[in-house]
């Protein structure tokens, strides 16, 4: 258990609900963590893919709104999504969406208080990566089979 020895530490020391003192954890930062470790790399990727999904939501609303405003504007949106830029963007978005979904499932598993030991952490991390690849390929296989 830690004790406050320096007044500057005041904000870094908190109390547990039983009243005992605890040193608050510092957020991981780039100087202290090797970002090439799978654990930290997957962690920041979860956040990045969440932000990417947010941008993808703008495109989903655009697609819905263009469908609601009529055939001409829907044609414009479909042309954009069918262009090379649109297809590459949608492929990246698909991978980001599946990654965020599977890594989110991993977070829910952690929230249940399980899977914190290193072998399990690495195993679930590999499952997230393989699942992302599998679901992304499956999604685009379905799309291209429907398309042609």
């Amino acid at each position: 258990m830690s004790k406050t020895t320096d007044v500057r530490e005041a904000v870094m020391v908190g109390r547990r609900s039983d009243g005992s003192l605890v040193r608050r954890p510092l957020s991981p930062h780039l100087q202290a963590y090797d970002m090439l470790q799978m654990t930290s790399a997957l962690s920041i990727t979860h956040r990045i893919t969440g932000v990417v999904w947010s941008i993808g939501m703008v495109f989903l609303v655009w697609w819905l709104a263009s469908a609601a405003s009529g055939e001409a504007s829907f044609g414009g949106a479909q042309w954009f999504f069918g262009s090379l830029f649109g297809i590459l963007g949608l492929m990246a978005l698909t991978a980001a969406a599946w990654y965020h979904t599977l890594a989110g499932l991993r977070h829910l598993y952690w929230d249940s208080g399980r899977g914190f030991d290193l072998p399990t952490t690495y195993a679930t991390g590999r499952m997230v990566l393989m699942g992302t690849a599998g679901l992304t390929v499956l999604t685009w296989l379905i799309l291209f089979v429907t398309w042609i």
Partner: protein
Amino acid sequence: MSQPTLRTLRSPLGRARGMGSAKGGTHHWWMQRVTSVALLPLTLWLVFSLARMPDSTWQQATAWIGRPFNAVLLLAFLAAAFHHTASGLQVVIEDYVRGEMARMGSLLAVKGICALLWLAGSLAVLRIAV
């Protein structure tokens, strides 16, 4: 038996209730989990549904959106997804944006944009479905 000591300034009742200040300490975290659980089946349904309509005409797309089953799930997806997006981006902003005004400003902007996009998407679905 030794004398019991109270080493916290929190009242015993407050500790027993375990709800922290303003009684909402875990609400943000919990709602993020609730929406994420809702989004698991909705995302599976939406992504695979959209993957099966790449070359759809306007008539086919609006017929699909307007089907009651799809319209309800689309509205549910938009509500859960924009709630989840707003709370997720809020955490990112709180972590990285320094300065009280910049942080408050970007938080309000993100919440406003999420609310407007949610309304716009829902209105589009309703216009097609109703």
